C-alpha cells in the first residue's frame, strides 16, 4: 500500500457513517470483525430505505400510479447501478433475488436441470460455501452427474496445474467462489473461465465475498453467471443479484413461479417472460433492492483502489500481530493471495471459547465451520475463529483484536 492511499483514506470518517459502530457498548467501542457474514450499513443506505418507506412505497411493475411509477424508476436505476458496478453490458442482465443462496439455487436448477445429463461432470472447489456446494451436489444426485473437486495446494489455493485434468470434455459446469468466505483465498476466475469455455462448460461464480471488496468485471472475465448478496456490500438483507451472460439468460428456466415472471398463463400451460423478470417471481424485496443501489453508490464514491488498499493494510497488520501470538495457526494462503479474512486457531484454545472471550471485549468474530464443512474437513479441524475486515474497520480495531486475544489467553490460562 502506498502512503498516498493512506493519506487519502480517512478510516475514522468512514466508520463514523455507520450508526451501529458509533455506539458505546458496556464492553467498549464495538469492534465488528464479522463482515464476511454480514456487513453493517452506512447512514445513506438506512436513509434510502426510510425514504422509500416514507415517501413512495408501492409494489413494483404493477400499479400505474405515481408511487408505482416512482418505485419502478428507482428499481431500474438500482439495476443499472448494479450492472455498471460489476461490468455488465446491460441492466437486463441483472435479476433481483433473495440472496446469494437462492440465486445459486436458481442458477443450478434453472440452468442445470435439463442440460446436465447422467455422466456429465460438475466441477466445484473444496473451499465453497455450502450455498455453492450443496446445490451442485444435489443437482448431480438428481441428474446422475458427477461432482468433482478441484484440488488445493498446501496453502489452500486452487492448484492450477490440475485445471486441465479436472476440467474436461465431460464438464458442464464449473462453480467457484471468487473469494473464500473462510480463508479469504482469491481464485483466478478468468483463468478458470478460459479452461471451462475451452471445453464448452459454463462458469458460475459465487461473488458473495469478492464483489464487496474488489472490482468485478463480468464482461472482461466472461463469466456465465455471477451471484452475490446485498448485505455483505453494506446493503440490506433479503436482496441478492443474479448476473447472467445474455445467451445463458435465454437458456435459464425459472424454478420459482408466480408474479410477473410469466408472459402468458392458460389452464394448460404457462410461458415465461424474458430475463430479468423470468427470475423475479413474486413481489421483489423492493425497498432492499433500491437501497442496494445506494450501497453501491456509497462504495463507488470511496472507490475500490482505496477500499482494497485500506483492507489490505488491515489484513497485513492483523496477520503480522496475530502471528506473534504463541500457538497461532492462520489457515489459507499468504496475504498476497487473499482478501481481508483471517481464519485462525490457537493451540489449546477452543474457537468457541475464544469467540466468547473476544465478545467480552466487544470484539465480534465468528467461530465454527462457517458453512464450509468440506473445507474444514480438509483443513483437519472442526472449527476456526474468523476475523473478517471491511472498509469501516481501522487499525484501532486490529489493536482491539490483539488485546482481546491476549485477554482470552490470560483468562483461559494460556499465559
Amino acid at each position: 500500500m502506498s502512503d498516498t492511499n493512506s493519506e487519502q483514506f480517512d478510516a475514522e470518517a468512514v466508520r463514523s457513517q455507520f450508526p451501529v459502530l458509533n455506539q458505546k457498548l458496556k464492553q467498549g467501542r464495538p469492534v465488528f470483525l464479522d463482515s464476511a457474514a454480514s456487513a453493517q450499513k452506512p447512514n445513506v443506505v438506512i436513509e434510502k430505505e426510510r425514504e422509500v418507506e416514507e415517501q413512495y412505497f408501492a409494489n413494483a411493475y404493477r400499479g400505474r400510479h405515481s408511487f408505482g411509477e416512482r418505485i419502478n424508476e428507482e428499481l431500474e436505476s438500482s439495476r443499472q447501478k448494479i450492472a455498471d458496478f460489476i461490468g455488465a453490458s446491460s441492466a437486463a442482465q441483472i435479476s433481483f433475488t433473495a440472496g446469494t443462496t437462492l440465486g445459486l439455487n436458481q442458477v443450478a436448477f434453472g440452468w442445470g436441470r435439463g442440460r446436465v445429463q447422467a455422466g456429465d461432470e460438475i466441477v466445484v472447489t473444496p473451499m465453497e460455501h455450502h450455498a455453492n456446494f450443496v446445490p451442485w451436489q444435489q443437482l448431480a444426485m438428481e441428474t446422475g452427474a458427477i461432482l468433482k473437486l478441484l484440488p488445493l495446494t498446501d496453502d489452500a489455493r486452487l492448484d492450477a496445474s490440475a485445471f486441465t485434468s479436472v476440467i474436461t470434455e465431460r464438464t458442464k459446469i464449473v462453480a467457484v467462489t471468487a473469494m473464500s468466505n473462510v480463508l479469504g483465498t482469491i481464485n483466478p476466475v478468468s483463468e478458470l473461465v478460459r479452461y471451462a469455455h475451452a471445453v464448452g462448460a459454463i462458469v458460475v461464480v459465487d461473488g458473495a465475498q469478492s464483489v464487496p471488496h474488489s472490482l468485478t468485471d463480468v464482461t472482461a472475465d466472461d463469466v456465465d453467471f455471477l451471484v452475490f448478496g446485498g448485505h455483505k456490500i453494506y446493503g440490506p438483507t433479503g436482496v441478492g443479484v443474479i448476473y447472467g451472460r445474455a445467451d445463458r439468460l435465454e437458456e435459464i428456466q425459472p424454478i420459482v413461479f408466480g408474479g410477473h415472471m410469466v408472459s402468458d398463463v392458460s389452464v394448460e400451460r404457462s410461458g415465461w417472460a424474458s430475463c430479468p423478470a423470468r427470475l423475479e417471481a413474486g413481489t421483489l424485496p423492493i425497498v432492499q433492492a433500491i437501497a442496494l443501489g445506494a450501497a453501491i453508490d456509497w462504495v463507488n464514491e470511496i472507490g475500490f483502489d482505496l477500499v482494497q488498499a485500506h483492507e489490505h493494510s488491515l489484513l497485513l497488520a492483523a496477520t503480522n500481530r496475530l502471528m506473534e501470538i504463541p500457538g497461532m495457526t492462520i489457515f489459507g494462503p499468504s496475504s498476497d493471495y487473499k482478501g481481508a479474512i483471517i481464519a485462525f486457531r490457537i493451540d489449546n484454545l477452543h474457537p468457541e471459547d475464544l469467540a466468547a472471550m473476544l465478545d467480552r471485549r466487544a470484539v465480534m468474530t465468528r467461530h465454527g465451520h462457517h458453512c464450509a464443512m468440506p473445507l474444514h474437513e480438509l483443513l483437519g479441524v472442526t472449527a476456526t475463529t474468523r476475523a473478517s475486515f471491511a472498509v469501516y474497520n481501522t487499525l484501532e480495531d486490529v489493536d482491539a483484536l490483539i488485546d482481546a486475544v491476549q485477554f482470552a489467553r490470560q483468562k483461559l490460562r494460556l499465559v
Partner: protein
Amino acid sequence: MILAAAESLQVRTMTIDELLEEFEELLDWEEQCDFLIDLGFELPHFPVELKCDENIVRGCQSLVWLVAEHVVGNGVSMVSIQADSDSMIVKGLIAVLLAAYSKKTAQQILDTDIEALFERMGLNQHLSSTRRNGLHGMVQRVRCFAAEHAV
C-alpha cells in the same frame, strides 16, 4: 501443590447448592463465566482411553466425552459421571452438571429438574445456541443412562 489438591478435592465435593450460592453472589455474567472457567479447570482428570468415539456427545460444536456408570456407595447404587471437553467453558458447564447429578441414584437423576437449574443460572440466556444444544446433549446422555438403570 498440596493446597491445589485440597482445593480440587473441595470443588469435587462441592454440592450444587454451594455452587449456586457462589455463582449467584457474582456480579454479572462476566464474573460468572470466569467462575465456570475456574470450575472447568478443577474438573477431575478424565482418562484419555475414554476419549473414544462412542463416548462423544453429539450436538456439540466442541468435543465432549461423557461416561456414566453405576457405583455402589454405602450400599446404595448411584450414578457416577465423568466428562471432559476441548472447550474450557464447556468444562465449566460439565462441572455444573456433575455437581447437580453427584451422589444421585438413577431415579433421583430422572427426578432432577435440570432445566430449572439452567434457567436459574441464566445459562439459556448467556450461552450460544450451539452451546445450549451441547449442554442438552449431555443431559440427554445422562438421562438415557439413568432411564435404563432406574428401578
